[in-house]
């Protein structure tokens, strides 16, 4: 039996690597500046206008002379005391102050809506430009095709779910290709959440609404668009969390290196399954 050989493949072409890191930076800044914006009015509603009596989500504070600040988070009538993190958290001087998201989750750290908006819109543009360039490249380079699940992928769906749950990852050459769950996750994030967050973001613009009214109507009105924007941001956070988890359990050094230099290492285990006998596609 031949011994497993360590092979290096060029897995991530330059446009993927640049796109990936610019995107990561944008998402980070957009999320944290977004939370700064949220703090200016930490209540979310459904519909066109705000029904101040009935937000579905509220991250508020209470102040009393005796007890000082306390934070209260309310979701659909369900309430919790979240002092310390949500609603009331330590400010610069270490004392509790009333603010929805804590200063370590907002850009800038202090309460500064004007600056939060500046950060948000600047990086929204970078994100849109980055995403557009990436999609154009991906379309012409055939990269998008590599993300479309094949019939074979679908057959392996159940197996892939089980493998992910058991934290078993493809080894050998198979590790250099996208698996079905990965393909579905990337497609949902790029076209689902990505499209949703950009559209709901634009729908919050009164000027854009003069031409986007049908889209706004579809979302259910401006306050609904704001709610969906917030929830989509939550969806992206969830994706990033799972993404980072998978990177860590599947060999963080190798994964990180491949997203920086492009080169991915894998163990070539000859003739253990039919997949490895196929021609190697360096499309990771």
């Amino acid at each position, binding site marked *: 039996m031949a011994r497993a050989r360590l092979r290096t493949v060029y897995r991530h072409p330059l446009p993927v690597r640049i796109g990936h890191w610019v995107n990561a930076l944008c998402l980070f800044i957009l999320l944290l500046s977004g939370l700064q914006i949220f703090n200016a009015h930490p209540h979310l509603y459904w519909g066109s*206008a705000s029904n101040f009596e009935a937000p579905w989500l509220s991250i508020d504070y209470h102040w009393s002379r005796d007890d000082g600040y306390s934070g209260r988070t309310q979701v659909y009538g369900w309430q919790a005391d979240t002092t310390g993190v949500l609603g009331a958290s330590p400010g610069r001087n270490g004392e509790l102050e009333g603010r929805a998201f804590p200063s370590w989750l907002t850009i800038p750290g202090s309460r500064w809506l004007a600056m939060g908006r*500046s950060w948000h819109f600047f990086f929204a543009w970078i994100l849109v430009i980055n995403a557009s360039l990436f999609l154009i490249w991906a379309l012409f380079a055939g990269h998008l095709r590599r993300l479309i699940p094949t019939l074979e992928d679908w057959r392996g769906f159940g197996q892939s779910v089980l493998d992910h749950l058991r934290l078993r990852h493809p080894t050998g050459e198979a590790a250099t290709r996208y698996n079905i769950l990965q393909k579905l996750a990337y497609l949902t994030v790029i076209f689902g959440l990505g499209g949703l967050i950009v559209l709901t973001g634009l729908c919050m613009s009164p000027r854009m609404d003069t031409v986007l009214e049908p889209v706004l109507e579809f979302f259910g009105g401006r306050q609904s668009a704001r709610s969906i924007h917030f929830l989509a941001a939550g969806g992206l956070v969830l994706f990033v969390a799972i993404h980072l988890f998978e990177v860590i359990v599947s060999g963080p050094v190798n994964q990180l290196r491949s997203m920086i230099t492009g080169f991915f290492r894998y163990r070539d285990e000859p003739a253990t399954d039919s997949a490895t006998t196929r021609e190697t596609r360096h499309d990771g």
Partner: protein
Amino acid sequence: MTDNTRRRFLKTLLAGGGLATLTGCDYLSEKTWFRDTLAQGETLSDVVQHAVTPRKAMAREYTPADISPSFRANGTTDPDAVEYRMLAANGFRDYRLKVGGMVENPMTLDLAAIRALPSRTQITRHDCVEGWSAIGQWTGARLSTLVEQARPHPDARYLVFHCADRYGRSHSPYYESIDMEDAHHPQTLLAYELNGEPLPIANGAPLRLRVERQLGYKMAKYVMAIEVVESFDHIAGGKGGFWEDRGYAWYAGI
């Protein structure tokens, strides 16, 4: 490395990295050159939004059933300036709107004259920069007619609205400005009625601006004078408005 030290190392790296990044963002936020760079994003929004929407594109108008039960008032809700208090005490009978600056025909109008101008009633959504929205019915004089009557100089580019209220810790006079495109838009009004009643003081009595395709802070309340200018560099902080002088974008279309 054992698992434990590795975990601790990763945690420290993450916490340290995160803290350094946030401190970096705060540091940059204080730098003028960086703020000016970020502001280019808002300039780009201005240019692109104007390019993809028609000049006369209308803001959606709602039905009476959509009107918010109470129209939230932000900023100043009861100006304390003596002159304003005297006007209010007298039901604004002595109120005069001054229209001046780069115009051929400077004007002074009382409320009766303003009510005699061609008017418009519209039910629109008001979007505050903080994130909330309220729907109200506004009745007011079309600003376009007033501007035409004043006959602006061909070089004039902006209308500056000087208000009766002083706001914030600095207690500075509120003011705002819009360009000629918005000044001529059919939905741009000097509103004197809200929901069929005379405009309440909290919402800007006797006269407030409505610029329906921008955010609330553009819509100056307690308007006392309109100054037609070529540039607003010489006024207050030079950025074209009270909030603009405090870092907000002059173009508030998003």
